Each structure stands twice: as structure tokens, then as C-alpha cells.
């Protein structure tokens, strides 16, 4: 009895270690590639928001979210030479289906520079239009959902249907994304004013 159990255990262990070995080989090949891919994606996203920036510093730990549902994943201080351009905040919060991830750029004067949707899995054709560059909430002026935040003050109320235009039939998505932008903006401007005070 014990002998047969031992045998089964050994067979199982052999299969498991074989699988581990194979996985280790694949991981050692793909690991570095995945890392550079992620770095490249982050760089591209940051460059997209602050095109003139040439360096950035991780300041994630300095920022705090004012909403317990929204988490600040990363924050970067963007610089061009010695000049501080602003802060980029990557934050996540619940949206209609699952969590959405937004990247928000905030200027040193406390206005929003740019908002990019990094991850959103809401309903295609409705909520997903938040990330669609060809979908305009203001058709006459060709302003996209995220485009409407450009130049907006971080102290604004960010209330959907009031100072934020909604995506048609996707009020929840609109509300969640606006809240993420608002929280990111607040956290970033707090940081900027603290920094401004210290200098």
C-alpha cells in the first residue's frame, strides 16, 4: 500500500518537475522580452501624453487616492531637461464590466493635459467607445470622450451630464472613467502644490 502510494507520488513528482523544467526554459527566453515590451508600452504611453518630455521619475509612493475604489498604480514626474512639465498618473477603478485603467497627464498649472484609456473591457459599441478615437461625444466640435478633459481644471466637479459629456447609453462607464480622471487629477495637483511649496 505505502509502496504503491510512494510510487504514484514519485511518478507525479517526475511529471511535475519535467513540466517545471520546460516552463523554466520558456520563461527564461520570454521573460526579458516581456519586460522590454512592458517598458516600451509605458514609454510610448508617457511620450504620447508629454511628447516633449525626455525623462521621468517614479513618484508612485507620493500620491494618494482620495477614493477607496480607485487605486493609483503608477505615477511619474515628467521633465524636459530641468523643467517640470507635469505628472502622469496611471490609475485603475471599477467600470461597467471590470476595472478600467486610465493614464492621465496633469500640467503644473493644475489642468489636465491628456487622458488615455489603457484598458477597458466595457460593452463594445457603447462603453468601449470611450477608447475609440473616432467616436465623438461632441459631434459638432469633434471632441472625443477623453478629449473633453483636455484643459479641464482638476478642481472641477467632474459630474457626468453636468460638466462631463456622457457616452451614449453608457452612463456607468462615463461616470467611472470621469471619477478615475478626477481622483488622478486631485492626487497629482496635491503633489504638484506640495512640491511647489517646498521649492
Amino acid at each position, binding site marked *: 500500500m505505502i509502496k504503491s502510494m510512494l510510487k504514484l507520488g514519485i511518478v507525479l513528482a517526475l511529471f511535475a518537475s519535467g513540466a517545471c523544467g520546460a516552463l523554466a526554459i*520558456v520563461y527564461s527566453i520570454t521573460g526579458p522580452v516581456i519586460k522590454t515590451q512592458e517598458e516600451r508600452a509605458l514609454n510610448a504611453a508617457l511620450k504620447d501624453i508629454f511628447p516633449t518630455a525626455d525623462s521621468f521619475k517614479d513618484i508612485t509612493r507620493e500620491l494618494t487616492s482620495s477614493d477607496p475604489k480607485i487605486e493609483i498604480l503608477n505615477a511619474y514626474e515628467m521633465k524636459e531637461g530641468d523643467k517640470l512639465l507635469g505628472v502622469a498618473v496611471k490609475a485603475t477603478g471599477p467600470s461597467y464590466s471590470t476595472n478600467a485603467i486610465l493614464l492621465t497627464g496633469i500640467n503644473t498649472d493644475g489642468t489636465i493635459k491628456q487622458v488615455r484609456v489603457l484598458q477597458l473591457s466595457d460593452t463594445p*459599441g457603447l462603453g468601449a467607445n470611450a477608447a475609440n478615437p473616432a467616436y465623438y461625444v461632441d459631434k459638432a466640435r469633434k471632441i472625443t470622450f477623453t478629449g473633453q478633459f483636455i484643459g479641464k481644471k482638476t478642481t472641477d466637479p467632474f459630474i457626468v451630464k453636468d460638466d462631463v459629456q456622457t457616452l451614449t447609453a453608457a452612463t456607468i462607464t462615463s461616470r467611472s472613467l470621469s471619477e478615475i480622471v478626477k481622483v488622478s487629477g486631485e492626487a497629482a495637483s496635491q503633489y504638484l502644490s506640495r512640491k511647489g511649496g517646498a521649492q
Partner: protein
Amino acid sequence: MNQRTSVFLQGLVIENPLAIIMIGLCSALAVTTSVANGIGMSLAMTFVLVTSEVIISLFRKLIPESVRIPIFIIIIAAFTTMVDLVMKAYFPDLSKAMGVFIPLIVVNCIIMGRVEAFASKQSVSNAFLDALGMGLGYTWVLISMSVVRELLGNGTILGIQIMPEAYQPILFFVLPPGGFLVFALFISFNLFMKKKWTKSPSGISDPEGGN
């Protein structure tokens, strides 16, 4: 028709994993909202299916009966993780779009079902043909479903506008209820093909006696 070819062809129509055996449906319904996802998912699925079936058939005499399920899971999980890593490294956008469905291939009933019912009892070449047939059977249903759903629900195929500008996309097809409807149409289409196939003189004998 020789036995090899019939093993391969079973999975395409007569025992199509999605339309006849009806296993592994959750991920199939969920990813078919766009053609790119459909292609990615079926390639990943076919790869894991073929490699797992071949490896398990190769080791079938060394796998003790009483611990076969954990061993199957170890082997399937290893291949799935490899697919996941390779996709993350070389196709990051696709991997993002597929989300949780790639890791979930591990528990996809098609693989578990074929490994248990077929590969663990058959020769390597039969297991390979069965996996390929099943994988392609899965692939054609998945890709055609996603073509229908993306075209009607979004007016595009692979993100390229196909329908005229004036076409108002029928969102219903991208949403879950549309998925069920399109899938039901494919089930009946597949049954129709199965009927034709099994009636023809050169047809393959149908183990269940036809429908």
C-alpha cells in the same frame, strides 16, 4: 476512407467539439466578439490541444491510472502557460485582448475531454490527428462565429470597415445574447452538414446513428 483520415475528419464536423459535443463553450462565446480574438484563441487552443494530446499519448503507458487526472492537468497547464508567455512577449496586444481566456484554456473541457477519452488510449499518430481535427473543428466554428458577430455587430472585419458607412451596427450581435443566437445557428448548420456527410456513400459511419 481509411481509419486515419476518419479520425482527423471526426473533429471537423461529425464530432465537432463546439457544435456537436458542445464543450468549452464559455470561452468560445466570450471571445468571438472580434475576428482577431477568434483567430488568436483558436490558434492557442489548437496548439495546446495538439501538444498535450501528443505528449500524453506518448507517455500513456507511464501514466498510472489512479493519478492520471493530475498528470493531465500538469501537462496541459504547462503548455498553456507557455502559450501565455509567448503571446505576452511577442503579441502583447492580442494577449491583452484575450485577457483571462488564455490561462483558462487549462480548464477548457475540450482538452481535458479529448485527453481523457482519446489520447490516453490511442497511438501518438492517432492522438495527433484527433487533436488537429478537433482543433480545426474548434477553429472554423470560432472564426466563422466571430466574423458574423463582428460584421453585424460592428460593421468591420479585423477592424477594417466592411459595411457601408450608413450601416448602423446591430450591437445585439456583439453582446452575449447575440453570441448565443449565432452559436445556435452554427449548431444547426453543422447538424445539416453532418447529415449530408453521413448520408453520402463515401461517408463516415456515424457512431450515434445519425440525428
